[in-house]
């Protein structure tokens, strides 16, 4: 699977990955409701928990002990991801649970990760919504970069904004690192530039590309800039309480444009909804959320915007 270019067969699903660095910003809740709306719109949807260090999506869906989990697939008990999909009470919506017992998968081998990414596109679905979990480990970044829509969730708090930005930053550097590993001529230049201790004091992607250009790699810098420019994440501010707080996503957008040379889209915001917190603590499946809920309506708008309808 390649980013933004669906090279798989026509029926291959479109992947939406939901990440954002910080825990507790509502990635799982947003993933569930996005998947719910897709399913409600008639799209065959699989919701997938790739929060390999602390999976909880099944709990939020009201499933206490998932009969099959991602662990079973990694451990080769089942041959395809299709085999571990669980039906949910919503029509068109299936779940792949990450299971809370797979802490070992928080650092899977590269081959396991590649296998998992390849299998995403073989799912019999129109859309796959992936809940990435917290952090900016290689795995989270690689799953994020492999998706067609790269969704960043943050809340209007300084640490959340910092984490969301750092998430984007690390994704960009991860992509550069992968690109450089495929181009032996670029590798030494990029390695020098990416080292935070480097004597050239290169701190931004812009400075890095300028450095490559000045070092005689003009032809190499352009494709790198193009690849980085194609990352284009989508930013969603969750749990906003007033219109001012909607600006949180804009901060990430502005800083990423200046320092990382990437164009992100500030896709909107979702209002804080006390009902969601009550449902989570009462273990009520989130897809039973009252559809008049403000947050539910906001996420509907986000879904339609993402679909481009």
């Amino acid at each position, binding site marked *: 699977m390649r980013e933004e270019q669906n090279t798989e067969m026509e029926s291959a699903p479109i992947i939406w990955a939901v990440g954002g660095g*910080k825990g507790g910003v509502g990635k799982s809740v947003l993933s569930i409701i996005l998947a719910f709306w897709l399913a409600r719109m008639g799209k065959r949807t699989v919701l997938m928990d790739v929060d390999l260090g602390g999976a909880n999506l099944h709990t939020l869906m009201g499933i206490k002990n998932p009969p099959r989990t991602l662990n079973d697939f990694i451990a080769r008990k089942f041959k395809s991801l299709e085999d571990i999909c669980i039906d949910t009470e919503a029509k068109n919506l299936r779940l792949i649970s990450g299971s809370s017992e797979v802490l*070992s998968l928080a650092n899977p081998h590269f081959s396991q990760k590649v296998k998992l990414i390849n299998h995403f596109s073989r799912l019999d679905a129109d859309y796959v919504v992936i809940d990435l979990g917290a952090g900016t480990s290689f795995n989270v970044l690689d799953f994020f970069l492999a998706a067609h829509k790269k969704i960043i969730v943050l809340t209007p708090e300084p640490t959340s904004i*910092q984490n969301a930005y750092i998430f984007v930053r690390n994704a960009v550097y991860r992509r550069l690192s992968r690109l450089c590993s495929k181009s032996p001529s670029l590798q030494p230049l990029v390695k020098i530039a990416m080292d935070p201790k480097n004597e050239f004091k290169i*701190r931004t992607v812009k400075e890095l590309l300028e450095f490559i250009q000045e070092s005689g790699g003009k032809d190499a810098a352009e494709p790198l800039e193009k690849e980085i420019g194609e990352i284009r994440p989508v930013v969603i501010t969750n749990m906003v309480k007033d219109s*001012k707080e909607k600006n949180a996503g804009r901060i990430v957008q502005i800083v990423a444009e*200046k320092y990382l040379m990437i*164009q992100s*889209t500030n896709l909107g915001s979702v209002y804080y909804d006390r009902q969601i917190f009550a449902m989570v603590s009462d273990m009520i499946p989130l897809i039973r959320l009252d559809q008049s809920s403000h947050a539910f309506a906001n996420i509907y708008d986000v879904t339609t*915007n993402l679909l*481009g309808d």
Partner: protein
Amino acid sequence: MNDRIDKQNSLVNRIIDGSVTIDSVTKFEDLLKAFPNDPGLHRVYGDLLKKEKSANAAADAYGRSAELFIESGMTLQAIVSKLLEWQIFKPSQQEEQAFCSALYEERDEESAVQRFFTGMTYPEIMAFITKLVLEKFPAGGMVKKFGDEENTLYFVVSGALEETAYHRLETGGRIQKKSTKDLVENDFFGELYPFDEEIVSQSDIKTITRVELVKISKSNLIHVCRKNPNVKLLVGNLYKSHVEFVEKEVTMTVRKTARQKLPTQVNLKIFQDETGKAPLDLVGFTEDISLGGARVVLGTKYQTGPADHLTGKHVKIKISLPTASVSLTILGTIVWSKELYLEGKTTAVVGVQFNEMTDTDRRALEEYHYGSAGEQNLIWSLWDSLMVK
């Protein structure tokens, strides 16, 4: 993949920042149907209509833009849109009063500039804003140079600029770079207070993006202040806030060192108490890390004895950053530990207090987790100008 809206959103941003121009009124109207509540878009639409000599429609677009900016708490931007409307049709006193009332109703007073404008009474605000001049700069333009006489107060309406401060060397009058900071919307610059001092600029100010500013000359400002003493008081407060902001930067470093939960792979060498015994080599991952220490989950290879045996032991941690080209080496002590059941085996999660790391490693860790000083400063500048209530 269908990304029409994605592109459309990004197109809207580019139209607002001026990097994309739409010359067709019909196409603009279609865009406004999709984004009816974007004040910036209405503002640009007004500019297009004005260029097309559609005075009535342009005034309406500016008026709508001003209303939406007020609703978003963007006082300065609302004032600029309103002034553009009033350049087309001179307002009645009632209209002026209604606009000022709307500004007061929605006032948030979250920034110094906001407090400055909403602190004025109706006659004061009209005396001040009618002296404002709108100025646009392309990206990479120089607004103010080191050594220029400070005779203008600027407010940033949109875009971002970079201020580079210098100081003169005692020998030869050469200058040396002192610091840089970003200026974003709702910031101001131009050191012309107190009025009786002749101040020479100590910095260069360049635009990073396309920028729209409004400015007032020192002579006009003095004139307004003479007739309206409260405005002079507000100008004083505005500059005082500038000084307070600089002082506040000291506390910003405290905010920046909040702990982050960013899982990162680490290699640990745990040194044994007994002399001559080889250290344990383990792989784990951090669950929580700051510049002071980390919580590390040890891999399943650790099987030697109860977890509390680890407490007090010295460790050498090698942290691999996602850049894949750098790893940091930090010396520390395990200050707590507890058992953890992982993959059917018992292992441990430990709290490591960092004791020693080089300055370069500290900087690298800080940059990895928080971004460079420039990135952090821009985040905080934007936080202060867009978010602080």
